[in-house]
């Protein structure tokens, strides 16, 4: 299922995503890490990844804003919001921004992989 799929990982603290990158690559996914919303949008425009995993708290452009832009480019790209923010309002904003899945950090990478698999199976 992972063959040929590329995953874009976005967080201004890239070390937070390295364990996820390690797991995804072990399963055959191609991965790219970028550290801000603008770079994420640019990458989506150029490379059309299969799925995006997006942090919320980033300088300049936050995850919700980046998600809206990504969905405006291609509304079919699945977006997983990954955040340490636990307020119920954050789920609401994630949904408003068009995110497909909302997960709280710290997140078990097995859970993320399972959700990625589920979203890509529907594409």
């Amino acid at each position: 299922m992972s063959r040929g799929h590329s995953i874009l990982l976005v967080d201004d603290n890239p070390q937070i995503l390295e364990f996820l990158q390690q797991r995804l690559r072990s399963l055959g996914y191609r991965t790219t890490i970028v550290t801000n919303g603008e770079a994420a949008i640019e990458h989506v425009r150029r490379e059309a990844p299969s799925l995006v995993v997006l942090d919320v708290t980033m300088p300049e452009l936050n995850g919700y804003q980046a998600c809206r832009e990504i969905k405006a480019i291609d509304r079919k790209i699945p977006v997983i919001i990954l955040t340490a923010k636990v307020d119920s309002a954050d789920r609401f904003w994630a949904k408003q921004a068009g995110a497909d899945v909302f997960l709280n950090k710290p997140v078990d990478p097995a859970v993320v992989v399972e959700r990625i698999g589920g979203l890509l199976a529907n594409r």
Partner: protein
Amino acid sequence: MKELDGVIVGVVGRHDAGALERAGATVVHLDPEEFWTAREPSYHAIVIAGLSLERSLAFVRELRADPRARLVPRAIVASPSTSEKLCATASVLVPAGAADEALVAVVDEMALRARSASADAQRILELEQRAAELSGDIDATAKDRSALVHDVRVLLAVAFGFACNLRDGINGPVDDQQRASLERVVAALQDASALLERGPALASGPGVRAAKRVAKRLNVRVDDLVAETISLFTETAAEAGLALAFDHVEPVSAWCDPVQIKQILVNLVVNALKFTPRGGRVVVAVERATPKSARGFDARANVRITVSDSGPGVRPEDRLRVFERGVRLGRDAEIDGQGIGLSVVSEIALAHAGSVEVEDSALGGAAFVVELPVDVRRRESELEERP
């Protein structure tokens, strides 16, 4: 040096202030209408003399209305015919025709009061500035603490993620024992992150303050929490030459915050292991108990958690103090610690409408007994069953 050197006196109206000038004062003669445009930045005294009642009262009203002049002492040169109404506005009355020495003495006294008030005002200003600086320092400390919490949160998330990968064999095969150990690492990191999520409390002070709120009540098997805690310390106890055991006969559940209850257990077990000498025993027991007193809510029973040891015990006179934050007893002198762990236990127990006491243990040392209501229900949407 003359008596009134450095004193600035505003004389409003008609008065021969030669005596004041001979005494060293700087005298500024003004009409009331000129006072507000031509006055010195700070008069030490104002002398009003020879004005009509109407002009005098009008001038005094303006003085009182001006925060810069309101507190400057006012002397009114008065005669028996001077209106009582005007006299009542004076800081001091100077009889018309009074001797020069009397006028100089009055002005000297007024200047002293003005300088004292000015010094007080300056001190207040300095204190306000210092308060603003301290407030800035507090804000900066709070920001530093928030930044520290954020950085710790990031590191915990990284450690958690890689521990999960190790557990799941992403970095190579793991045997059952390794997987079990990694499960404990993952669980401890999850608990640490959950504690950090009590963010605002931690940002404003030591982490112990977070204990005063129960974040979320779940229906939890307390005996499972005890078993998990004991498994964390089995090797540590063995290395210290101590026997660590769990004593329970039945499953016991309670509506509580599992993260906070684990904090209680960890702190009590750590405390017991610290103070029990090599060759000794630490036993953790959990059981249902009858509440000691009605607490006015739906409490069907209590959960009693007892951590007993064969250490030196706690003297009766210390059994309340030992739960106060920062308190270290005589027996603690050679053992590392800051006197926080037991205060956290107390705060969490109280937050759960429970209690904690220390008694003599059947093992010969201390027995720390925590009692929590089994079922304290609240009508909030936060309640849910733990899967």
